[in-house]
């Protein structure tokens, strides 16, 4: 059997491949975009999964520290702990910090926890060097992404912090590396003011009572209790907002991911549209270049279906090649991006489906040209 599309592609192979590569790069970027999105979701969940707690008690009428400012008193943890259903509870802080590097500042997300407490937020599986915090003050555990080494001294606020542990794969929902400091240090950094400010406040009669604040109380419940019921009851008694881990996950991903997904979705749609237009144009010009042959084919009696099959197959081949190039391209460059890029098979399949549909659309104008072609055009009446 003669395969018209194959023969025609072979005839214009160079041009065809170059086009496929160009479109492939666009599709590669689409895959990277999807990967960035997946990376964001995954990053958002790392922290929650590492903390591995059942309940979050946060400032009343707020969504909690991942969505908005939330302050509760540190001693609330004792109240929580006294509830029958609760197994463990701890106070915890979250804050953005700028760590000084040689030539710039590095934005990180800091978790402050009670080093004597019963919940350790550092996932030991991720601790690749050193140890967890052991002293109340001026120790820090950093993510390897920060490029700090063990025993480095980092100036934060007025003091130097010693790097005692390195973790791998710990990121905050925004993609910033995570660091861990003691609760006391965190409170000092977050809630205490400069000496000057304290002097002025005292002169005004304001006494800083904020230094025993934290951002949330986290808790685990005893087995045999229903998480949702416990959360509901606690909300009533404590006059705070209480979220289950699942609810907190929704808050976190919705907050972080919603805008990002719209943005990335929009970019993806535009890129796919551009890729479709390019495929359509190239197929159209390839068809125009063949108009004489198409006229002759129609004149000697070849059915439209034979000719349309050629056009559609060429378009699909172009789309398929571009898809393959796109995958190669995205795998070559994905780790060069500063954000976590997760290339997932399901996204590749989704794009594959989109490319096939787009290719079929792209072939329409070529096919229309074929259907309307005058069989006597080539021979000139």
């Amino acid at each position, binding site marked *: 059997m003669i395969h*018209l599309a194959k*023969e025609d592609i072979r*005839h214009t192979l160079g041009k065809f491949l170059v086009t496929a590569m160009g479109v492939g790069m666009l599709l590669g970027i689409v895959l990277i975009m999807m990967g960035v999105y997946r990376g964001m979701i995954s990053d958002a969940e790392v922290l929650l999964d590492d903390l591995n707690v059942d309940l979050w008690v946060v400032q009343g009428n707020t969504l909690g520290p991942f969505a908005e400012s939330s302050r509760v008193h540190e001693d609330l943890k004792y109240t929580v702990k006294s509830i029958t259903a609760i197994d463990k509870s701890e106070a915890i802080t979250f804050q953005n910090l700028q760590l000084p590097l040689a030539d710039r500042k590095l934005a990180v997300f800091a978790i402050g926890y009670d080093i004597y407490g019963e919940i350790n937020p550092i996932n030991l599986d991720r601790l690749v060097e050193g140890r967890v915090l052991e002293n109340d003050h001026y120790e820090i555990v950093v993510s390897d992404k920060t490029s700090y080494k063990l025993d480095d001294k980092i100036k934060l606020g007025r003091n130097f912090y010693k790097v005692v542990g390195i973790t791998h794969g710990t990121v905050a929902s925004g993609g910033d590396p995570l660091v861990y400091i003691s609760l006391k240090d965190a409170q000092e950094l977050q809630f205490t003011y400069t000496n000057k400010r304290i002097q002025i406040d005292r002169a005004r009669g304001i006494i800083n009572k904020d230094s025993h604040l934290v951002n949330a109380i986290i808790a685990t419940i005893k087995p045999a209790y229903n998480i949702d019921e416990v959360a509901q009851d606690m909300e009533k008694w404590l006059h705070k907002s209480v979220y289950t881990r699942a609810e907190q996950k929704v808050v976190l991903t919705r907050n972080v991911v919603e805008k990002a997904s719209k943005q990335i979705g929009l970019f993806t749609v535009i890129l796919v549209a551009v890729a479709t237009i390019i495929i359509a144009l190239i197929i159209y010009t390839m068809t125009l270049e063949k108009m004489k*042959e198409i006229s002759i*084919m129609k004149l*000697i009696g*070849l*059915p439209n279906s034979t000719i349309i099959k050629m056009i559609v197959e060429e378009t699909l081949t172009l789309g398929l090649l571009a898809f393959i190039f796109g995958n190669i391209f995205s795998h070559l460059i994905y780790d060069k991006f500063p954000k976590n890029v997760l290339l997932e098979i399901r996204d590749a399949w989704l794009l594959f489906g989109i490319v096939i549909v787009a290719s079929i659309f792209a072939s329409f104008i070529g096919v229309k040209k074929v259907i309307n072609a005058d069989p006597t055009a080539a021979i000139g*009446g």
Partner: protein
Amino acid sequence: MSNNQAIKVENLNKAFGSGDAFVDVIHDANFTINKGELVALIAPSGAGKTTLLMMLGCVDKPNSGTIYLGDEKVFQDKWLTKETRKIRREKIGFIFQAHYLIPFLNIIDNLTLLPQANGVKDRESKQKARELLEYFDIAEKENAMPSQLSGGQNQRVAIARALMNNPEIILADEPTAALDMDRSTNVVKMLKKIAIEQDVAIVMVTHDDRMLEYCDKIMKIENKTVVFI
């Protein structure tokens, strides 16, 4: 109706346009062409030779009249079949001034393309193509591309292509116009041989009087109608 008849035309009319742009091309043409005949069609430029050929080939639609191809009435004031292309594919071979081979197909694929559309098996159509290439003395070129052949060789391939579907009728529009005297004579002799050997009716438009001696009949468009001389 003799069963020797390949083409029969009755009261055929064709005009283009309307109003100021109206051109009456063929007016009330009546003629019959038999199987095995090589018929020359001559007339000055613009007289309607190509138009007539395209009507016989079911490409251009006449305004009125009747056309029989073989025993089948294909046109009576309208096409009697929805798929005129099927008639072309099955009954008619076309040859033009230029070869019009498909440039991205090699010679053998150019030949087997049409039979394949007719559902002929690959092996069968290839065998037929090889026989024809042998016959036209270009067997060694079956895997070459048209761009690698000379004008004369390509024209022979084009003639072979017109024969691939065992047509009852071959319509040739100035097949020798692009060839020199020797090659032209060769092509016309070849057409003559094909007409006799394959019992095909061939209508050949020509401007070259020297080709007329090989033809069985000479048909002329005169005063918008068809006459034999």
